[in-house]
């Protein structure tokens, strides 16, 4: 089942993304621990899209797609910016300097999910359902 949410690039809108996802995932009886991981990752990637992708220009949108199937949950988050960035590998993400005060969000997202794919500005994050 596919669900879609479009938000303005405002930090205040993050809470609506959180509530929307939480409600959909709970309704589909996704395990509590997995819901927490998905909520964390969506928060990090959406924050990144608002602050760095769309540079906080409120008229620019962030698009969030959620696809829930029996075996996995796929989150697709895209913005209207054209920045270039690299997704760390699991190995790189594991070498997390936990006392460093920034740049932790993307690495944690890689660690909490099963796969992260970047295609033409779209970030697709896969979570396997066990």
């Amino acid at each position: 089942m596919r669900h879609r949410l479009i938000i303005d690039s405002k930090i205040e809108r993050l809470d609506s993304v959180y509530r929307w996802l939480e409600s959909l995932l709970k309704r589909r009886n996704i395990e509590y621990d997995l819901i927490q991981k998905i909520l964390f990752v969506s928060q990090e990637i959406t924050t990144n899209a608002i602050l760095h992708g769309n540079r906080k220009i409120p008229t620019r949108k962030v698009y969030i797609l959620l696809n829930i199937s029996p075996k996995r949950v796929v989150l697709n988050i895209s913005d209207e910016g054209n920045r270039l960035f690299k997704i760390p590998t699991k190995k790189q993400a594991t070498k997390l300097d936990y006392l460093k005060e920034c740049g932790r969000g993307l690495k944690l997202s890689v660690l909490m999910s099963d796969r992260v794919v970047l295609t033409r500005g779209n970030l697709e994050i896969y979570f396997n359902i066990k």
Partner: protein
Amino acid sequence: MHTTTTLVRDIKKIKISVEKFDVSNMKDIKKSIEREISRRDKRVLLDFSSVRFVDSSGLSVIITLFKKLRAIGGVLILCGLNHQPFELLKMTQLHRIIKIVDSCH
């Protein structure tokens, strides 16, 4: 008001009164905490019992506070951690260096 502060013996207890400690409120919470702590406060207890969710911005506030206190020979203690904040601390290995207690009393 995102925080409430009480002094119990020599421990300054600061309760974070938000459900989500994230990028939307981290600056305000950081300011409130910093306002409450002086150089004389060597032991700070952060009460997380109301907090259900912490993102990497919230985490950065905890780390900053931990480092500041450590630099002056102080100690940061976290209490009342709910599932998600505790799991995040475990994943970042911070549970090994920051003191965590169950009860805030």
